[in-house]
C-alpha cells in the first residue's frame, strides 16, 4: 500500500515536472510547479523527513511560488510562449538537468548521506538528522543550528537583511 502511494507520488512529481518545462503557457507551468513542489514534499515524508516536508511547503509553495506568480503577472506578454528559440533552450535545459543528475548521483554515492549514521557527530548532516526520527529530527535541527552551525545561522539573518535592503533599494525609484 505504502509503496503504491510512493510510486503514485513519484509519477505525479515527475509528470508535473515535465509539464513545467513543456507547458506553452507560463501560468500553466507555474501551476505544474506547484504540483511538483507538493510531490517533492510527499517524497520527503517518505524519507521520514516530515519537518523538511513541511518547510518545503511553507517556503516553496507558500513563498517562492507566490513570488513567481507575481513576477509573471507584472510583466506583460510573457504569458504565451513563442516558438522561436525553444529548441536551443530545450537542449540547454536538458544538458543542465543531465549535469545536475550526474552531480547528484556522485554526491549520493560518495557522501555520508548514503551510509547509515557512522560519524560521531550527529550534526554532521542536518538533513540526515531529520531523517533519523521525526522528534529527534526537529529538536536535532534546533541543536545543530544553535550548536556547531551557530555562525551560519547568524549569518543567514544578515543575508536575509541584505536581501531585504536590496529589494527596497532596487525599487526605490518607485517608492520615493
Amino acid at each position: 500500500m505504502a509503496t503504491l502511494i510512493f510510486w503514485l507520488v513519484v509519477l505525479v512529481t515527475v509528470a508535473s515536472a515535465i509539464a513545467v518545462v513543456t507547458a506553452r503557457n507560463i501560468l500553466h507551468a507555474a501551476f505544474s510547479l506547484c504540483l511538483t513542489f507538493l510531490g517533492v514534499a510527499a517524497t520527503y515524508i517518505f524519507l521520514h523527513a516530515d519537518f523538511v516536508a513541511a518547510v518545503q511547503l511553507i517556503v516553496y509553495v507558500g513563498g517562492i511560488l507566490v513570488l513567481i506568480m507575481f513576477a509573471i503577472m507584472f510583466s506583460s506578454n510573457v504569458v504565451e510562449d513563442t516558438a522561436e528559440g525553444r529548441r536551443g533552450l530545450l537542449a540547454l535545459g536538458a544538458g543542465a538537468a543531465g549535469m545536475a543528475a550526474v552531480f547528484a548521483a556522485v554526491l549520493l554515492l560518495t557522501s555520508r548521506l548514503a551510509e547509515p549514521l557512522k560519524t560521531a557527530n550527529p550534526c554532521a548532516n542536518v538533513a540526515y538528522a531529520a531523517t533519523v526520527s521525526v522528534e529527534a529530527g526537529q529538536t536535532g535541527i534546533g541543536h545543530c543550528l544553535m550548536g556547531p552551525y551557530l555562525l551560519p545561522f547568524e549569518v543567514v539573518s544578515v543575508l536575509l537583511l541584505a536581501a531585504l535592503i536590496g529589494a527596497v533599494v532596487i525599487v526605490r525609484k518607485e517608492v520615493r
Partner: protein
Amino acid sequence: MGWELYVLKAVAVLLIFGGVLSVVPFLVFFERKISAFIQDRVGPNRVGLAGPDSLLEAFGFRKGTRRVLGGWLQPLADVIKLFTKEALIPAHADRPLYLLAPLFAVLPPLLAFVVIPVGQDIVVSSGVLVKLQVADLHVGILFVLAVASLSAYGLAFGGWASNSKFPLLGGVRAMAQMVSYEVGMVLVILALVMSYDSVSLRDMVSRQAAGGTLLGIWDCDGDWIWGWGLFHQPLAFVLFAICALAENNRLPFDLPECESELVGGYHTEYSSMGFGMFFQGEYIAMMAMGGLLATMFLGGWHYPGYAWLNASDSLLVHLLAALIGLAVFGVKMLGFVFFAMWVRWTLPRFRWDQLMRVGWKGIIPLALANLVLTAALNLPAPAPAHEKPDRNLTAVTRDR
C-alpha cells in the same frame, strides 16, 4: 488485532469528513439569519415551514415560530440550486486552470482538519484506543501551516484563469493579503509551540487540560479553565483571531472579493458548484480557523469537570464524557464562526493601505515581541531543565 484499529480510524475519519461538509450549508443559513437579525430583517423564512399561518397553527406551531424556525430547510434548497445551475466556462477563460482553481479553494481548509483533534481519546477496551482525530501527525501544527500556504492559489489561479479584470484584481489582492498575514500567524503559532513545548495539537490540548504555569509566573491546575491557552497567551489569542479573519478573507479583511468595488472578486466569473466550491472553501476555512483557535487557546475538547467524569470506570460514562467533549469542541469552534459573522455584519471594510499597515506595522512586530517575550518568560532556570516537562508528562498520562 490490528485491523480493528484501522476500521475504527476509518469510522472516525468518515465522521469528521462528513461532519465538516454537512455543517457548511447550515453555516450559510446561520450567516443569513444572523445578518438579518443584526440588520433587523427576518431573513430566509420560506423553505421549511410552508403553508398559510392557519395551517401551521393547526399543526400546533405558534405564530412567532415562522420568524425563528421558518427557512430551516433553506440550506438544502441552496445546495440543490447550486448543483442544478449551468456550469458555464467563459469564452476567454483559461480552461484547465479555470476548472482546477476551485479545487485549490476548497481542499486546503478541508485538509486542515486532518490534525485538529475534535474530542478526547476513547478507550474502548484496554489497549484499544480511538483518537477522535483524523491523524495525530508528528508535524502537527506544521501540517496546518503547510496546507494554509496553499490556500492563496485557489483564489489566484481562479482570478487569473477567468481572464476578466475584477477576478484578476481579486486574485492579486488575495495573494498579497494572505501572504502578509501568514507571517504574523506563523509567528504567533511559534510562540504557542514554545509555551506548550510541542507541535502536536493533541499534546497542546492535553497541556491545557493539565494546567501549567500561567504567563510563566504562577501555577494553576487544570480542573477549571485556567489552563487554557487564552490565559497563557492573551496577546497571541487576539493576534491569531485577527490573522484568522484576514486569512479567511472575511470582513474587515475581505478585499479580495469586496462586492462594492470588485463585483464578486475572484469568483465573479464562476457559476454553479465552481462558485459553490469557493463559497464552501470560505466557510470550511472559518471552521478550520475556529477549530485551531479552540484547540490552541480554548482548551479544545476540555471542559471543567472532565477529569471527574473520566475518573469513573464505566465505559458508558467514559463515552458520555467523550461526547460532551465533542459537543464542547463544536461549541467553541462554532463560537468563533459566529464571532466572524458578527464582525462581518458590524464593521466596515479596511482600505488596502490600511490592511497592509495593520499587517506589517501591527501584527508582525507584535507577534515578534510576543515570541521573544514567551521565550524569555518560559526560559528554564539555569539549574537543570528537567523539572518542568515531568509535570506535564504525568498530566498527559493521567488523561489517557
